[in-house]
């Protein structure tokens, strides 16, 4: 039997790194935490009012709808829960201090996607339905696409490079019986 040592650890109180990270809790709430290193504070003090005399602020930016707002936070805080109005959007948060009435950026977070909490606003009867053949994935991880031409173009425009544009003959049109069966795609359903 191996002799096993007893151990005891505490988590580091700080890492002395400047960091701000944004995490998503739900469609209406994000969590952000941060740390500012001694070095960063020194740098700040060179160009601004004294760091500890400045109000700490989080600047929240909705990148999808393109608006920002500030949230003042306690100078001693190192994390915060941010309630957001718009779900289904990308957000980014800057940690800053107000010096001489101006926002001074200290560090910028990662971009986080707040999920949508409702079905996609997608008009099936207008936009049609797109089907892919799973067996065509193979090692190339590519899909053979059936469906509506406009929709396919839109996917392509979104840089979904996984699609393979194969213009096959008519034989593939008959998969799953008649392609006219697809909701909303009758008439213009086609195979690429």
């Amino acid at each position: 039997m191996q002799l096993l040592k007893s151990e005891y650890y505490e988590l580091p109180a700080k890492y002395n790194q400047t960091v701000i990270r944004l995490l998503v809790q739900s469609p209406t709430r994000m969590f952000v935490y941060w740390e500012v290193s001694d070095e960063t504070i020194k740098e700040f003090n060179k160009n601004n009012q004294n760091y500890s005399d400045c109000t700490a602020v989080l600047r929240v930016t909705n990148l999808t709808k393109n608006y920002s707002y500030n949230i003042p936070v306690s100078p001693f805080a190192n994390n915060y829960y941010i309630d957001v109005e718009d779900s289904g959007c990308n957000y980014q948060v800057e940690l800053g201090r107000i010096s001489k009435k101006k926002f001074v950026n200290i560090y910028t977070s990662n971009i986080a996607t707040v999920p949508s909490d409702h079905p996609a606003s997608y008009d099936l009867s207008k936009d049609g339905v797109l089907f892919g053949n799973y067996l065509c994935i193979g090692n190339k991880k590519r899909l053979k696409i059936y469906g509506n031409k406009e929709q396919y173009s839109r996917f392509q425009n979104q840089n979904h490079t996984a699609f393979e544009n194969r213009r096959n003959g008519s034989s593939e049109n008959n998969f799953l019986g008649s392609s006219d069966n697809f909701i909303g795609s009758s008439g213009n359903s086609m195979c690429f």
Partner: protein
Amino acid sequence: MAKGYLNFVLHAHLPYVRHPESELYMEERWLFEAITETYIPLIKYFQKLVDEQIPFRITMNISAPLITMLTDDILQERSLKYLVERLWLAHKEIRRTKGHNDLNNLAKFYYYRFVEQYKIFKREYNCNLITAFKKFQDMGYLEIIACPATHGFLPLINITPNVSRAQIANGIKVYEEAFGRKPNGMWLSECAYIPELEDALNEFGIKYIFLETHGITNANPTPIYGTLAPIISPKGIVAFGRDLESSEQVWSSITGYPGHPNYREFYKDIGYEADWEYIKPFVAKSGHRVDTGLKYHRITGKTDFKDYYHPDWAKEIAEEQADHFMHSRINQINNSASKMVIPPIITSQYDAELYGHWWFEGPYWIYMLFKKIHYNQDTFELITPSEYLSKYPNIQVSEPAISTWGAHGYSEVWINPGNDYMYRHLHAAAERMVYLARCITKPTEIERKALNQCARELLLAQSSDWPFIVTMNTMVEYAHKRLKDHIGRFNALADMIDKHDINEEYLEDISYKDKIFPNIDYSIYAK
């Protein structure tokens, strides 16, 4: 020909709770209880179905920590010891309850149950239940899928590059070593999906995943068949969504099957009620009263007075409920099949430990359900995801929605004021891991060992169980300690690597304690 299909999925996972340093940790009992109450009963009924030539299909995820624990020598020995102790306790109970007809019958019921379990566990599978699950997979009845390495909650740790890749890759590695094949599917921990995971899933050959209902119903474009058909993402990952109706029938704490008054009451156990001196050898080694597995009462109703348990009455209810479940699926399929150009597939996904551990009669219910599906109807068949995909490969293209199967459907369980402090340390350790892996491309032998152990500690720290336990307010101190231990070991080793001064004795000690992912390669973090 079947009009539709049932895709019955069990997710089996326990956190890595191996403590070779001491038998005082109560958490190892999670494994022992799951073995005796869920895994052995499932294996027993799978075998019974095979013997009765019933062509059932079931999909199971067995997580890497669980695979590792079920194949670990120390834990196998302790599991066997636990089982033998149950046998001994049931034997003592037969004597103690003499003269009390109801109790005596129950003591005998448990005694014979443990004798049968001993035969399955020790004699048939030599204490290694992974060989049993592998056998059923090789026979074609069971499709086993993989899971991220330590069941990490990926949306919240995906901040650092390669973290999700390492979770996915190491989960698959353990799977392949255990089952001798590549997995087709992956159970994303807590069904937590974000689109950023798809590149790693593709890279390691994962073809399908499972999602919570709104992962499908909120997908874009809206899936025309809801959860009754899989969708395929633009990057080529197939997603099956949890069916709400069949799920509620089992899961619901109010109307779910497991709450029937004739079923065994989980919360009354002789571990809490028997005389201390008598029960002491059978409860926790730390001297705490805990469950022994011998429970003599039935749910009875919403009352503190609990009547005695009658196994035969419970079996009758399980049969009735299996019938009800089957007819509900027939109705569901009859109502939807005519509106679909492909046969509907109902995906019913549950925690494996619900069956047997929480719902004592659950494994028998599964057995009866599968039997009834085979003999009593021809509307639908059981199917695995791989079989369904090969039969019906044309799938609607749609981007799944960000979702989890946790309370409220997102990440509140894993990030809230009780556990949010963890992420700061998890991200810092992950960043340091990436930095070390990128810097040290030609390690010495001892550095390589230390870096691999760092990767193990990081993965163990990332287990979703620690924030989960804190939120559930159960073994909170243990969860905090586990995070501290793994982050502490990681940082201690990383400091040694930085200083070119690795303490071999220390490395050996923690490598023995956290003995998981034997073939891990730290360089995965370097990409």
